[in-house]
Structures are given as structure tokens and as C-alpha cells.
């Protein structure tokens, strides 16, 4: 830790990791919704739903005894995985993606699931934003009371 003030500003950093992670997750959901109608067949596979996996970010410098209150430093996106659910198959012989039997594979995105996910992300984003505002209020009060 090079910045001696990072202890007090750490609260902002933690909240911002949350905001960033939720925002990136919402982009993946938007991408799922945008590609949900991309069909395919056995040669050219349709769109596979993407899932974001989060992980907890811990302070690496904690062992060096920098400060016991700075144990957790927020959240991070560990990877973007693929949903392994099988593709639903429907019968439509005239479809450009249909094979010789008239079978077309559609993407494994479930629109309602994505919409629910989007709502959850919005709530989480708001909670992180609220946390950020609270922390700012605390620092502002500190300046007012002890700033001389």
C-alpha cells in the first residue's frame, strides 16, 4: 500500500468493485438477450448462454500487517462461463438453419430468466450505490466535526 490515505478511501474502492461487477454482469445479460434468437444446427451451433461467475476479493497485503480492518477489498469477476444446458430443437423444414431432417437448434437462453436476472442486478447495483453514498456521508461528517 503506497497511498497512506487508502485506508480511509478503501470504502469507496470496495463499493466501486461492486458497481463495476454488477455492470459487467448486466452487459452479459444484455448480450444473452440480444443473441437469444440466433439459431443453428449440428455444424454451426446456436448461441450459448453466458454466465458470469463472481468471486470475493481479499486483501493480499493483509498478511503484511497493513491493517486488520482492510481484510476484504470487494468483489471481482472470476470468469465468464458458458451454460451447458442442451439446445432446444424444433422442427421447421423451411428454416435456413434446418438440417436434412428439418430440425433446427435454438439458443439455450431463457428470456424470462434473463429478465429476472436483470432485475436482481439492478437491485444489487442500487444497494452498492447506497453503500457508496453512506460512506461518503460518514467521511463528510468527519470533515465537518474534526476538520477544525
Amino acid at each position, binding site marked *: 500500500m503506497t497511498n497512506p490515505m487508502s485506508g480511509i478511501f478503501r470504502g469507496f474502492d470496495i463499493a466501486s468493485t461492486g458497481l463495476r461487477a454488477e455492470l459487467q454482469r448486466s452487459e452479459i445479460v444484455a448480450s444473452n438477450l440480444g443473441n437469444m434468437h440466433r439459431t443453428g444446427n449440428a455444424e454451426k451451433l446456436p448461441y450459448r448462454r453466458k454466465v458470469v461467475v463472481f468471486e470475493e476479493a481479499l486483501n493480499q497485503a493483509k498478511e503484511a500487517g497493513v491493517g486488520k480492518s482492510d481484510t476484504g477489498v470487494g468483489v471481482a469477476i472470476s470468469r465468464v462461463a458458458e451454460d451447458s444446458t442442451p439446445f432446444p430443437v424444433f422442427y421447421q423444414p423451411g428454416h435456413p438453419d434446418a438440417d436434412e431432417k428439418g430440425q433446427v437448434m435454438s439458443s439455450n437462453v431463457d428470456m424470462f430468466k434473463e429478465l429476472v436476472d436483470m432485475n436482481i442486478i439492478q437491485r444489487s447495483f442500487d444497494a452498492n450505490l447506497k453503500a457508496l453514498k453512506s460512506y461518503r456521508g*460518514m467521511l463528510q461528517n468527519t470533515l465537518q466535526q474534526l476538520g477544525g
Partner: protein
Amino acid sequence: MGNINTDTAFTEHTLDALQARAKATIHNIANQNVKGFKRFEVRFEDMLREAVDSGQKIGSVEPVVQRDTSGGEGQNNVVMLEELTLLGKTELMHDYMLRRAGGYFKTMNKAIFGR
């Protein structure tokens, strides 16, 4: 009365605890969608009570950050509303302790400079 260091030690440690609790709560909120995450909690008030009961100095009590391991194995135990309430409570308490510290310094100023 008379030693600024011992007079403000209690307020200082309380502010430390509240600051740490705010950060831990923000960390919990940020990790509410992480599978298997266990929330952090900051212990202070109960240790203060123990110190009072056993006749120790309350200025010597320091906050402890630890994991709350309640909930099932591999299950996230963050409840968003609880964390937000805790954060609001922490914010208020922090404001109160700051006013207390500010008042103390004002009094000291008055005692030294007469204004």
C-alpha cells in the same frame, strides 16, 4: 481527566470500529451475489460490555473483524436489507461519536485558550 490520550482512546477505538464495520458491510453488499460467500462482522460492543463487567479500562478495547460462518455449507449468508440497515445504523453512530469527539476538543480549546 487531564490526559488527552486516555480521554480520547475510547472515542478513537469506537470510531475505528465503526469505520471498519462500514467497510465490512460495503464488502458484504458487494459480495451478495458470490456463491458460498460468508459475511464479515465487526465485534466491538459485546467486548466493551465484557470489559466493563470485568473492570478493565474501556479505552483498551479494540474492534475485531471476523467471519460470520452462520448458514449452510457453501451458502451465501448476506441479507441485503440487513446489511443496508446495519450500514445506516453505523452511519448514525459514527456521526454521534464524531460529535462527541468534536465537543471534547471544543471544551479542551476553551480550557486552554478561553474561547
